[in-house]
């Protein structure tokens, strides 16, 4: 075999390996989606959304309390993270060249890489221990801490996409930096930022580890922020490691709902970013 043929064969083998890698990664994705959808659909019914959990041994029941809990805890997280995240993002894009901005950016990336379980331990220390009480507020705080860096970095990236001429135009007309940002630059980037917030919400709504010892769990329906509260993820965890078939069934149903939330948000975000890209391409 000539050297050239050998090189060509090696090259084709490499291309095949790369294509194979894609397939190897998509197989588990397919498997997970397949099982979550088939197992989940069998268990999903109206009762899942509107009924409370039944005691062990009694079949049926739902996760109404946990669904409300997830909405509340994620909502609290967004209340905390959206203002801090968006304004930090504004700072990073407006004063991007400064040393302080690099420090902020580094802190954001660091915070983003902190394991979620560690955030849970931290939130336990500052939001549970002092009050001697697991609470929805503590859970919201833990998720909020995770959400801040995501929103800050997305906001920064999207603000940098806004054409510099828009900001300069506003400044040339005599606007202050603040009004240039809040009435010209930020509105231009707003659809993208909202998309980013929705994606961040979808991500933290799927978090379990930071909630295990902050919002904890609750068999009962509550909207009291100072009480422990059930969430879908913690409920799926509790059911998954239980020995009861009926609870396993419900765990799959919960997983399906979580995956659908993630899928819908990702798809919406994709459509939105596409539209944004087209807008920017047109100028």
């Amino acid at each position: 075999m000539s050297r050239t043929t050998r090189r060509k064969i090696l090259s084709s083998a490499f291309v095949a390996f790369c294509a194979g890698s894609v397939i190897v990664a998509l197989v588990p994705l397919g498997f997970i989606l397949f099982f979550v959808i088939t197992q989940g659909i069998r268990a999903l019914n109206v009762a899942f959304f509107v009924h409370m959990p039944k005691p062990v041994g009694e079949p049926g029941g739902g996760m109404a309390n946990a669904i409300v809990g997830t909405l509340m805890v994620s909502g609290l997280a967004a209340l905390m993270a959206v203002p801090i995240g968006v304004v930090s993002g504004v700072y990073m894009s407006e004063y991007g060249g400064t040393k302080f901005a690099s420090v902020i950016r580094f802190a954001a990336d660091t915070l983003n890489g902190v394991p979620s379980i560690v955030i849970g331990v931290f939130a336990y220390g500052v939001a549970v221990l002092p009050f001697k009480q697991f609470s929805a507020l503590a859970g919201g705080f833990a998720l909020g801490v995770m959400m801040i860096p995501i929103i800050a970095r997305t906001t920064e990236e999207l603000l940098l996409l806004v054409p510099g001429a828009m900001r300069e135009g506003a400044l040339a007309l005599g606007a202050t930096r603040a009004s240039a940002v809040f009435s010209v630059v930020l509105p231009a980037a707003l659809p993208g930022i909202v998309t980013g917030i929705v994606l961040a919400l979808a991500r933290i709504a799927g978090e379990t580890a930071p909630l295990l010892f902050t919002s904890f769990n609750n068999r009962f329906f509550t909207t009291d922020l100072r009480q422990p509260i059930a969430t879908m993820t913690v409920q799926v965890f509790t059911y998954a490691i239980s020995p009861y078939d009926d609870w396993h069934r419900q765990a799959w149903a919960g997983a399906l709902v979580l995956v659908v939330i993630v899928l819908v948000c990702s798809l919406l975000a994709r459509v939105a970013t596409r539209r944004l890209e087209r807008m920017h391409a047109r100028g």
Partner: protein
Amino acid sequence: MRSKDLGFRVATGAFALVLVALVCAIGFELARQSMASIQKFGFNFWRTDVWDPVAGQFGALPFIWGTLYSSILALAIATPIALGIAVFIAELCPAALRQPLVFLTELLAAIPSIVYGLWGIFVLVPAIRAFETSIPGALRQLPLFSGPPLGVGMLSAALILAVMVIPFTSSVSREVLKSVPAAQREGAYALGATRFEAIRAALYYARTGIVGAVMLGFGRALGETMAVTMVIGNNPRVSLSLFAPQYTMAAVIANEFTEAADELYLAALVEIGLVLFIITLVVNSLSRLLIWSMTRSAVVLQTPEPTETPAAA
């Protein structure tokens, strides 16, 4: 007007400072809560392998072993696959396939950890158990495959971690490959290189950033909690066996934190969290540094030859 702009800068800067404050607060709070354990056990905490909360004995060696072993195994599986995906999407695939493939691989990162865990318990673990049972007895004598075929254990954890890490490593590698100047590949092609040889040249050029991408995946694997907790078997024992149930730092915190009745037990768990925080901090910082130096130097190298680029395009 100047003073107004200064006010704006200070006000937005104050919000941004929250990010720095949070990172410091996490480190401070974890150190404060774990003081009792640090003072009592000192460095011995990380050298002893007996974890017996009832007897008041706390040795964290099995957890740090389990965390490192599972993460390194996961990286060994995930890295070639992730690089293959990155090369395929960045260099080989038809333009029409690119966006859908990026979307699908990123979906792997978007699926919640708890869903991976649920799937792990009911689908992966039984499959692994069947595989372990089918291994011939002679091979079972090896320390790598010793122990009863339980399904739950190191192998299941490493596999599930590998799947979860792939999207992170591959998306950063893809970005890094994009920052390699086109002239690198064109030069190689002009010299008669095959596709593989040209891409190898690009990969070599991007090596710093790719090491960074792999480390970023490592950081993710170290801190992954739910999926691992659900499939690794939660047994605090140092073992080389892929089939043995073991334990990780994140998993022990998740499982035992709410049960930790006495102060020392809680402090010991927080200390594990503190060390996990420090390790991931170091790994992530190094990884960012490598990726940043790669993408930055690429920009610097591209600029001095403006006359070359139009011809290349």
